[in-house]
């Protein structure tokens, strides 16, 4: 088991390239941008649905009074 522990020590010493952090950061930024766009689209769709709903109700109410 001692040898496996020695191997673990070597494993923990594996050098981390700087590029790793750059690449991970890039992916996170890309994902955040996509999320923001998605949220904006959803918000616009929701607003449109609500507005359409008001308009429909208004049309029904108007008919009632006519």
């Amino acid at each position, binding site marked *: 088991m001692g040898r496996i522990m*020695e191997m673990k020590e070597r494993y923990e010493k594996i050098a981390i390239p700087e590029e*790793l952090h750059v690449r991970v950061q890039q992916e*996170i930024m890309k994902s955040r941008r996509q999320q923001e766009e998605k949220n904006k689209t959803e918000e616009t769709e929701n607003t449109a649905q609500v507005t359409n709903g008001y308009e429909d109700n208004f049309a029904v109410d108007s008919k009632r009074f006519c």
Partner: protein
Amino acid sequence: MERCVPAVKEILYERLIQFILENQDRFYRVAYSYTKHQEDALDAVQSAVCKALEAHKSIKNTDAIKTWFYRILINECLIIIKKRRKETFTADMMEREVMYFEKGYEQGDDIEKVLDMLDMDVQGIIKLGYFEDMSLKEISGITGLNLNTVKTKLYRGLKLIKEKVQEADLWVE
């Protein structure tokens, strides 16, 4: 109630990002231990991060993030290894295996060579268990193997390593 669901998803998304940022070095080590190649390991981590962020909505709770992410990462490593094997599985690999049994090879990395000769799933179990200090339950969640299968594979793998290393020691003596 309907408003609560997107809020939870947003929290899980932020937790996932936090988990990735805090553990990226560990991901790289795992990926490197599988691929044994810097560029491949970087590709595996990047691809895993990308896929995890794209699929973040499938996370059920924060406790599941670790197992879920490692499963994606290991999958990416295996895809890269398969791809590379197709390209380079030739006499070079065979030569390496023969060299292992030759007299007087370097003692320092013999155990690594033995580990590399094991099946990929056994290698993975040993690496996650001993290098990443994961529990058998976590390993079972990551590999998708039954807990008892994980135990059996782990003990068989360790036994095999022990036998091969002893065998190698005899050669050196």
